[in-house]
C-alpha cells in the first residue's frame, strides 16, 4: 500500500515539476473559460430554454477539452519511463505490476481532477450575476461533475494503456486521442438517424457519450452509465497490467 502511495505521489508530483502540468491546467481553464463565456453570452438578456448545467456540456470547447486533456496527461506515464530507461529501475524494485499501474492511474487521474477543479467556481460565478436563485441547481452541478469524473477515469485508463504500448509519448497521445474521438463520434452517428430504430442504432445510443453527458447534465444519475464507465476503466487498467507483464514473455 505504501508503495502505491509513494508511486502515486511521484506520478502526481511529476506533473508539477515540469512545465507540461501548468500548460495543461492553463489550457483546460482557457478552453472551459471560453465555454463559460459562450454560455453566458447565450443566456445574457433573453430567456433560454436550457439551464446553465445543461447548456455547458453542449459547447464545442467542453468536448475538445475532455477529449484532449487525458491523452496529454497520460502520454508520459509509461512511454517516458520506457524511453528513458527508468522503467527498468522501477520494475526491478520489489513492486508488482498491478501496484505500478494503479499508482500511475491514480496519479494521472488526480491531476485530471485538479485541472478541472477551478470549474467548480463557474456555477457560483453564474449565480452571482444571474440574480436568480434558481439559475443553478446544485444537484445537476454534482451529477455533471460525476459525469466528467467518470469520463475522465475511462480516458485516463485508456491513456495509460496506450502509453504502456509504446516508447513514444506522441504515439501514446495520438493513440488515446484517436481511440477516444472515434468512440465519441459513434455518439454522433447515433444521433444522425433518430427515425430508424435498428439494433445497431440502439447499441450506439448506449455508447454515446453525448447522451451520457446529457443525462448527467440534467441531473439524472443512471446506473447504466456508471457501470459503463467503471467497467471500461477496469478493462483498460487490466489491459495495461497485461501490457506491462508482456515484457516477460514477449
Amino acid at each position, binding site marked *: 500500500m505504501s508503495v502505491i502511495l509513494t508511486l502515486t505521489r*511521484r506520478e502526481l508530483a511529476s506533473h508539477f515539476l515540469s512545465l507540461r502540468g501548468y500548460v495543461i491546467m492553463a489550457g483546460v481553464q482557457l478552453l472551459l473559460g471560453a465555454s463559460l463565456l459562450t454560455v453566458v453570452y447565450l443566456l445574457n438578456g433573453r430567456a433560454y430554454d436550457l439551464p446553465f448545467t445543461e447548456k455547458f456540456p453542449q459547447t464545442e470547447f467542453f468536448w475538445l477539452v475532455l477529449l484532449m486533456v487525458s491523452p496529454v496527461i497520460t502520454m508520459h506515464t509509461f512511454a517516458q519511463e520506457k524511453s528513458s*530507461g527508468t522503467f527498468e*529501475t522501477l*520494475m526491478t524494485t520489489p513492486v508488482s505490476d498491478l501496484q505500478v499501474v494503479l499508482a500511475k492511474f491514480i496519479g494521472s487521474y488526480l491531476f485530471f481532477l485538479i485541472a478541472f477543479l477551478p470549474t467548480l467556481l463557474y456555477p457560483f460565478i453564474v449565480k452571482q450575476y444571474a440574480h436568480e436563485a434558481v439559475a443553478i441547481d446544485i444537484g445537476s452541478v454534482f451529477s455533471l461533475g460525476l459525469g466528467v469524473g467518470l469520463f475522465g477515469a475511462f480516458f485516463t485508463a485508456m491513456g495509460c494503456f496506450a502509453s504502456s504500448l509504446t516508447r513514444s509519448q506522441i504515439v501514446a497521445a495520438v493513440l488515446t486521442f484517436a481511440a477516444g474521438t472515434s468512440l465519441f463520434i459513434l455518439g454522433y452517428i447515433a444521433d444522425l438517424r433518430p427515425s430508424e430504430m435498428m439494433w445497431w442504432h440502439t447499441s450506439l445510443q448506449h455508447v454515446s457519450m453525448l447522451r451520457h453527458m446529457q443525462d448527467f447534465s440534467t441531473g439524472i444519475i443512471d446506473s447504466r452509465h456508471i457501470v459503463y464507465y467503471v467497467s471500461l476503466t477496469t478493462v483498460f487498467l487490466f489491459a495495461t497490467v497485461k501490457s506491462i507483464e508482456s515484457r516477460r514473455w514477449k
Partner: protein
Amino acid sequence: MTDLHPDANPMIEVQNLTKYYGGKAAIHDLCFSVPRGEIIGFLGPNGAGKSTTMRILAGYLSASGGTARVAGFDVARESDMVRRQVGFMPENNPLHEDMRVREYLKFRARLKGLNTQKSRARTEDVVEQFALGDVRNRMIGELSKGFRQRVGLADALIHEPELLILDEPTIGLDPHQIRIVRQHIKSMGKHHTVLISSHILPEVEVTCTRLLIFHEGNILANDTPNALENALEGRHRITVELNASQEDLAQAWEEMAEVEHHRILPAEGEFHRCALTPRDGEDLRPRVSALARARGWPLRELTRERHTLEDIFVHITSPEEDF
C-alpha cells in the same frame, strides 16, 4: 556477508538459461554458478548476452527456458524476494532527471520496501558513502556524468542487497571518474557480491575476482583472471637479442629440443632478435641464458611475453585468429 561454504550456497546459480527474442536466442543454454563475496565480471562484445542475463537475474525479464537462482531464490517464482536481494543499475544508468538527489534516493528506498525512518537513514548513509553531500539538493538532470553514476550506485546499494548488478558501470566516464567508480565498486565488493559487465578488458581485469566471458549467447570461460592467463601460459613466447650470426643462432635453436618454432630477425648493430615458441609450455629463459654464457654471445635482452586478458579475450572469442 554470511560466511557460508561457497559451493553449498552460491550467490548465483544458473542452469540451461535461454532467452529468445522473436525466435533468435539472445542467450543459449547458459550454465554457471558464482560463489558469494566475489566481484564478477561479465565480459564480451556488444550483443553477447550480458545485459539479457543481467536483466533476467534482476527480475526484469523472464527466461524462455532454464532456471536461475539468486541468493537461493528462484528468479521466476520468487521474483519479489529476488528483487529485494538485488541492487540493479541498468546500462546508461537511467535516473529521474526532475528529482533532487536526496529526494530520488529516498523515493527509491521507499520503493524498495524500507520504511520512512529507515529510508531516511540509509539515504544519509549512501550520500556519505558516495560523497554526494555537495550535490544532495541538486537536480539530477544538472549533475555531471560522474555524479550521476555515483547516484546510480548509491541507489543500487540503498536497500543493502546481497547482490549488486551493474551493467556497464563505467561506460562514458572520463579516466578520473572511472577510477573513482572503480574504487567504489571495489569497496562495495568487500560486503556484497558484485556483478559488473563490460566489453572493455582493463575494466574487469583490475576490478574483478572472477570473469565470465560471453560470446554470442554462450559462456566461453568462467574462472579467475589469473587462471585464465595461466591457461594460456603454455603459449608464452620468449624474445631474445643476441650478438651472433644468423646461421649460428638458427643452428642453436634447432638443436634445442624445447623450441618448437623460431624466427630470427636482424636487429640494431651486430645483434639478432629471435622469437622462440616453447614446445610444451616450458620457460625457455634459463636455457637461453645458459647457452649465451656457454657460447660467449653477448646478450642484451631476454623477455617472456605475458598474455594479457586482451589476448585471452581475442583468442576465446575468435579462436581462428592466431597470436
